[in-house]
């Protein structure tokens, strides 16, 4: 998994940098909210920042950047099924047949 003490020192330095990045981007998220963008733009911006922060946690704290294919494939399929669940429920819910006046 991990080799020598030197690698560990480098890793520790990296973790500290990631930590500060996460704190900074938390502040950025809060400040961005103050701009009162249109709702859909605000959502997109918030999700982009959150996704970036999450990828820092996942890649470095959770070692995903150096993980094995078996883990990647598992997460790829999970992500695919999550997205398709969200999209298909949304589309099914809001595209209703002609003549139906509102969503049941």
């Amino acid at each position: 998994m991990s080799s020598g003490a030197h690698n560990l020192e480098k890793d520790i330095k990296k973790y500290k940098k990631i930590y500060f990045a996460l704190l900074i981007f938390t502040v950025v998220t809060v400040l961005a909210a103050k701009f009162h963008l249109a709702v859909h733009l605000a959502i997109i911006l918030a999700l982009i920042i959150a996704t970036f922060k999450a990828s820092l946690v996942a890649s470095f704290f959770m070692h995903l950047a150096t993980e094995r294919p078996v883990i990647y494939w598992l997460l790829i399929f999970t992500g695919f099924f999550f997205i398709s669940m969200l999209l298909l429920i949304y589309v099914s819910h809001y595209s209703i047949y002609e003549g139906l006046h509102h969503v049941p």
Partner: protein
Amino acid sequence: MSNEHHEHKLPFWQKYLFSTDHKTIGIQYGVTSLSFLLFGFFLMMLMRWQLAYPEQAIPFIGKFFGEDRAPGGVMVPTFYNELGAMHGTIMVFLGVVPMGVGCFGNLIVPLQLGAPDMAFPKLNMASYWVFLVGGLTMLVSFFLPGGAANSGWTAYPPLANFATIGQTVWILGMVFLITSSLLGAVNFLTTIIQLRAEGLTFMRLPFFVWGQLITSLLLLLAFPPLEAAGILQLMDRVAHTSFFLPSGLLVSGQPLEVSGGGSVLLWQHLFWFLGHPEVYVILLPAIGIVTEILANNIRKPLWGYKTMVYSVIFLGFMSFIVWAHHMYLTGMGTAISAFFQATTMIISIPSVIVLTCLAISLWGGSIRFNIPMLFTLAFIPMFAMGGLTGLPLGLAAPDVYLHDTYYVIGHFHYVVAPGVIFALFAGIYYWFPKFTGRKMNDLLGHLHFWPTLVLMNCIFFPMLLQGLAGVSRRLYDGGATYAHAQGVLHMNEFVSISAWILGLAQIPFILNLLWSMVKPKNVDSDNPWQSTTLEWQTPTPPGHGNFKELPVVYRGPYEYSVPGASEDFTPQNIKDIK
């Protein structure tokens, strides 16, 4: 490492109750789920009385149901609904799936992998106990005021939101069962990926293990949305939120005092997101069992092994994107309905491929017609019936007519009863000798098999006809008040009588099972069926740790009649052909 110390002198409670040995846990699951299957069957037998002889007092036992459920022994509608909801819930979640995965999966997978146990033995034990707690929770709900859940096993809001307290306990029970399944899925997936013996590549795995692999992947990713839905329904019922209650809903003419803004369809989506993969969770262990037994009894290699493997992988993947074929009548637009119709039609292909490969495998085989093989051979056309009757349901246009009719009940019972349950029976008869040193009795096996096959058809075929006539499901009176049902009402009595006789036909099986456990050993070999897979290369029964030395695998799973071999089967761990 630590197990070696206590292997020999474990007290009873540790050896049999809280065992971490996959074989003991498998038996625990087997005993528990067979008991639940029997109980669920009993619930159905009661329902069939009401359908055959509406408003007539249930004979002998009618008085035991109390004034709330059966005043004067006559079943009231809510009791009928309670029986229906719990029959479905128990059969699916406490019966066939724990049997297929918890029992057969646990017993066979580590052995077929050449592994000493599952990857996480303590987690395995925890899975069983959480399952049992979930099952007992479901049973306890019968004793609550208002009885158990009675809004269908599908628990649709708004009805389920306003149901009696049994529904809340149903949700709690489901949380336990889902947790058990998730822990089990993690265990199975890790075990299959990590603990394969040396030389046992994925394409040398017995098809049974492939079935369990895909099943666990489905359980892992499809159950959590139902858990989420359960949490939301719990919030609706207990905290009076309105996740599933739209604004402006009237109940008994009165507007509800809730915040509104919810959606009943949201429940349906989250439920069926699990619900559809669940049917493959029900199927895949069964089709794995059938494949093992068929391959063993044709004494030649399975035809199309790779094709079957790719088919079930594809099937597992597709199963996540077909679910709304259960929701064609909810007002979805034509485009999205067409999408789900397309994926549903596509998903029928892999099952047909698998069944076809099994059928083609029979050609030119030296077929042995033992009891497991009889159930296996019956599975093929019976499951095909069930699958084919699913097609008009998967197509949106005919489903407009057939949705929620007895046709649906006929369809899914064909796949589950003479389909999956036959496979489970086959597996019991087949693997019984490995764990007990006894083959079950053949005469009793025939007495079990033939009536069961005939009677299941007597029960479920008429349902297809009733459904085509337009008789709706979940009707307390079996359709009696509807003009369109009059022509097929007479079938109710025939179906009910068949169902009760079917119950009698299980007695030879139960007697056979119990007696065979205690009769003298009648098997002279560790491998009485002369099989190639690794579970038969162990002592009978396999000891703790399964193998004295972990086996090395040199060949595929179905090397029967290998040219040049002295026997007509060559086990996977044999290096050179003798």
